[in-house]
């Protein structure tokens, strides 16, 4: 579904990605692991078209998107839930939820989203940024489930959240996988990622240096600890 080859990206003068290669198949949950500054977030932003200078190849459903504008990439079916969540302060919760335009049929409708995230229903009229961190994260995820995008990229969805909320987000990811969505996840929280992901790619210094299927996780724990420095 997604094929990334030789992806390079720059922020101004600094060269962040040095040839990233990986694949995500339809219906998979794939996690990018790596230390801070390894280039995980930049990889997601580059796929989404949010990094101005990028080279290499990003094929989505067989179509090259490396030169495309981010709105056209979104229209092709990719959605990003950014690390900083990107909840709009000048919009209510309800307005935030329906902000991204529906790009294809097959997204979840509002009643389904309210069943998954009851808090969003209760607080529909609140200002978006008045929600707690966990609620904002749910809103940021719910927002992109509605649009019909098939590849959902979640950037550190559990960062700074209480364990009970992390569990809820884990359930949500398994739920959307069961509904046939494809998920590309960036996580620092390796324990959490292990509960949802099919495969892991390990990034270091702007490159993918290893791939570990979930089934082989136990056998590779030592290597992983070394990669991640945990």
């Amino acid at each position: 579904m997604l094929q990334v080859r030789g992806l390079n990206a720059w922020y101004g003068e600094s060269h962040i990605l040095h040839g990233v290669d990986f694949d995500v198949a339809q219906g998979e949950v794939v996690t990018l692991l790596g230390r801070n500054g390894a280039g995980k977030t930049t990889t997601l932003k580059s796929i989404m078209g949010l990094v101005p200078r990028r080279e290499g190849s990003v094929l989505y459903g067989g179509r090259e998107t490396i030169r495309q504008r981010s709105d056209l990439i979104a229209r092709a079916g990719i959605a990003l839930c950014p690390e900083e969540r990107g909840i709009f302060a000048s919009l209510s919760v309800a307005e935030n939820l329906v902000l991204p335009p529906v790009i294809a049929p097959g997204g979840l409708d509002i009643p389904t989203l309210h069943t998954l995230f009851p808090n969003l229903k209760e607080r529909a009229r609140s200002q978006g940024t008045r929600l707690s961190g966990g609620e904002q994260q749910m809103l940021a995820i719910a927002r992109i489930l509605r649009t019909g995008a098939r590849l959902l990229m979640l950037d550190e969805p559990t960062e700074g959240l209480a364990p009970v909320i992390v569990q809820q987000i884990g359930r949500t990811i398994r739920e959307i996988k069961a509904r046939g969505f494809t998920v590309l996840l960036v996580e620092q929280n390796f324990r959490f990622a292990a509960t949802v992901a099919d495969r892991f790619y390990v990034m270091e210094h702007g490159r993918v240096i290893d791939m570990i299927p979930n089934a082989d996780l136990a056998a590779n724990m030592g290597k992983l600890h070394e990669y991640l420095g945990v």
Partner: protein
Amino acid sequence: MVMIFGKPLILLYGQLTLGLINGAFYALLSLGLAVIFGLLNVVNFAHGALFMLGAFVTWGLLTYLGIGYWPSLVLAPLVIGVLGAVMQRTLIRRLAGLDPLYGLLLTFGCALVIEGLMRNQFGSSGVPYAIPEALSGAVNLGFMVLPRYRAWVVIAAAVMCLAVWLVIERTRLGALLRAATENAPLVQAFGVNVPRMVTLTYAAGAALAAFGGVLAAPMNSVNPNMGTNLIIVVFAVVVIGGMGSILGSIITGFGLGIIEGLTKVYYPEGSATVIFVVMVIVLLLRPAGLFGKAA
């Protein structure tokens, strides 16, 4: 004669009406500036020139095509909206991402060019435009005689401001605009054609200025300087209200018009400077403006 604080009531009413009318123009123009600044981060110094062009288009429609005031209320903003879109696409867009100072200089230059061309063509004294028949004359309200056209200007401007505010605060289009004002790249990454939205927003701001120009056309003469005289005050209004605040610019516009009117009654010598005095005080006490959020 009825007196209030030693001034005849009739004078007070008269100046209050004038103040409201000035306030109506301040509100219309600063509203457009606020919307443009919010999304484009451009301090649109061409706003006064667009206002003036709106008045000239109104005059031109009547003089050359025989199209009267009422259709001009729609046509002139449309024409200037298209001009605004062209200006944004060909000039302003090139400055995206640079310091707002560049946009300010560019639009200031545009204003000088537009006003120079118009002065060259029409001279400084300008051309007359008659008040439409339905709005000529005055109504006696009992306590004062109110020229119909003045009442119309205040009502039309207030309704337009309210409509713009409703669109921005209560519609999906407005939600997209507010969101893009906060974080345009993210809104674009959701699949919204933000570059087109930016062009249309500038066009809408220009159209709003032109609408003000149509309203202003029958009030004095239609002349190339009418925008310059107004825009300086309007920028003070925007600074007082808080850059980028929609409701703030409407309230501040009308409010300062009234303050100016009252000053004309009680201390006429200060009427030309009172708005700038208010600006200085507001900047000292609340640098982000009355309705602005501190950056």
